[in-house]
């Protein structure tokens, strides 16, 4: 996925761009976290990535396809799946399984293939037991998992996650991140994940930080937190385990309590 000097201005925004001069190259199989305060342009970037929005200036390429060419749209939409912040914006089916089938059905796949993909996606998101239920009877967190399952069933090459983990409880949030990591590991899927959560940023291969529509940082997630002032200015509190480890002079970066305890014990 390539952003080449991209700018985007919303209609009615009096010419104030939501994104400006964004140049970013995301490699296949890379897990990129996109950070930034509310209103910094994260959602706009996500919507440019699957051609829901077209750049006002510059170009966006998905798997080599220029998003501004009408002929490329079908190809882009089968390769790029978008998981939105609010699941209710992307749930359409009368039952859980119908909803997950909606995407593959529209790809014109065979009945067997649709069935296989639905089963797999439901299983991955632990929704198999609820497959016959009406989506509005599910809890918010369950609907969120349903939205992710709907995207998974499209077998995308790139997953764009626009704060898809906000409103999930920490275990489900961690599971979603683990799922992203697994998809990258096993299927080489590229993940672009917009988030406010420091521990999710740290789980990524790379972090991009947006401020007022500009890309102000692009590098290793750890570096983002090394610069305390930069992190604080963007509302990024380092995770508690990170603070604990640094206070006690433990180097490196552990995300699990057991690991930190082990390191501390070893450092006696």
């Amino acid at each position, binding site marked *: 996925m390539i952003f080449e000097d991209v700018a985007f201005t919303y209609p009615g925004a009096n010419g104030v761009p939501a994104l400006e001069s964004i140049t970013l190259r995301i490699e296949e199989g890379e897990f990129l976290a996109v950070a930034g*305060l*509310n*209103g910094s342009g994260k959602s706009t970037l996500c919507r440019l990535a699957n051609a829901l929005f077209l750049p006002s200036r510059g170009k966006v390429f998905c798997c080599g396809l220029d998003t501004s060419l009408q002929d490329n749209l079908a190809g882009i939409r089968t390769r790029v799946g978008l998981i939105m*912040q*609010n699941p209710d914006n992307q749930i359409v089916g009368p039952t859980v399984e119908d909803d997950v089938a909606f995407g593959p059905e529209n790809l014109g796949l065979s009945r067997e293939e649709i069935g296989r993909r639905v089963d797999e996606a439901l299983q991955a998101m632990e929704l198999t037991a609820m497959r016959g239920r009406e989506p509005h*009877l*599910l*809890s*918010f*967190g*369950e609907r*969120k998992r349903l939205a992710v399952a709907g995207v998974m069933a499209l077998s995308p090459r790139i997953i764009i996650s626009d*704060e898809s983990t*906000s*409103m*999930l*409880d*920490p*275990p*489900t*949030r*961690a599971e979603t991140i683990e799922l992203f990591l697994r998809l990258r590991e096993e299927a080489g899927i590229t993940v672009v994940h917009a988030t*406010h959560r420091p521990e999710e940023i740290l789980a990524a291969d790379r972090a991009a930080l947006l401020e007022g529509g500009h890309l102000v940082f692009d590098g290793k997630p750890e570096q983002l937190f090394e610069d305390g002032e930069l992190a604080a200015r963007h*509302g*990024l*509190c380092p*995770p*508690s*385990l990170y*603070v*604990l480890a640094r*206070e*006690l002079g433990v180097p490196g970066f552990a995300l*699990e*309590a*057991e690991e*930190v*305890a*082990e390191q*501390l*014990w070893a450092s*006696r």
Partner: protein
Amino acid sequence: MGIALTGVGFTYLPGTPMAREVLASLDIDLNSGEILCLMGRTGVGKSTLINVMCGLLRATGGEIALDGENVGSSREGGRALREAVGILMQSSEKQVFAETVQRDVAFGPRNRGLKGDGLRRRVFEAMLAVGLEPEAFASRSPFSLSEGEMRRVALAGVLALRPRYLLLDEPSSGLDLPGRELLHRVLNDLRSDGVGILLVTHDWDEVEALADRIAVLSDKHIVLQGEKEKVITALAELERTGLRPPPVISVLAELRDRGLELPPYASSPAAAAALIAEAMGRSRG
């Protein structure tokens, strides 16, 4: 003063094949002037519970007492609850609907008969409480605001009704740090004014910053309820409910298991670091 639920149950679509019992013989109480954090896995029934507590859903069993008086599950009881209790729903930016911020915030009190200057004062007071300058925001369309600002409008709309109790369903998820800090200031002010606040949250940092007490909902019941420190350090019970304890508390527990003399609780990572450094020094010495 408080809201107390005793033996409360709730079933969606009772008497149909779709019936789903979400709450059963559940006890919880919320006191005036405290912040009670309600935790639990997604889908466990937290939103259902607060809808029952504010009278939007009628309990299918049990007793609800408002300031010592049983309001039961009658129609009148529901009204008494709705008058005393304000609720800020999940994705509260969707709770906003009017053409201007001022009208949106005025909707509730106007429906309760407030008019003219009294109404205007009430609205501006509520806007100021959530950091929305009336001069800058009153005549703007709420739909021209950012999501965080829309949530503040929704909260102002609830506060304009001067609720004695306030239930908030994950108000900080999706908010950035400055947005969360502002929300925390508002909630602290309300607590000082004697409002009883129930806050649904998944965020241990938020719990640490705000909670007086914690209640954990799991499998239809409140399985843990008590002072903050006590619940946070009940690691085995927390894990049984599927919640991951705060990581720093887990580190303390791991090191205690290895024989370091440490207390089970620390209020911050820095405090934990100091305790650990001291304990390791002692164990060396």
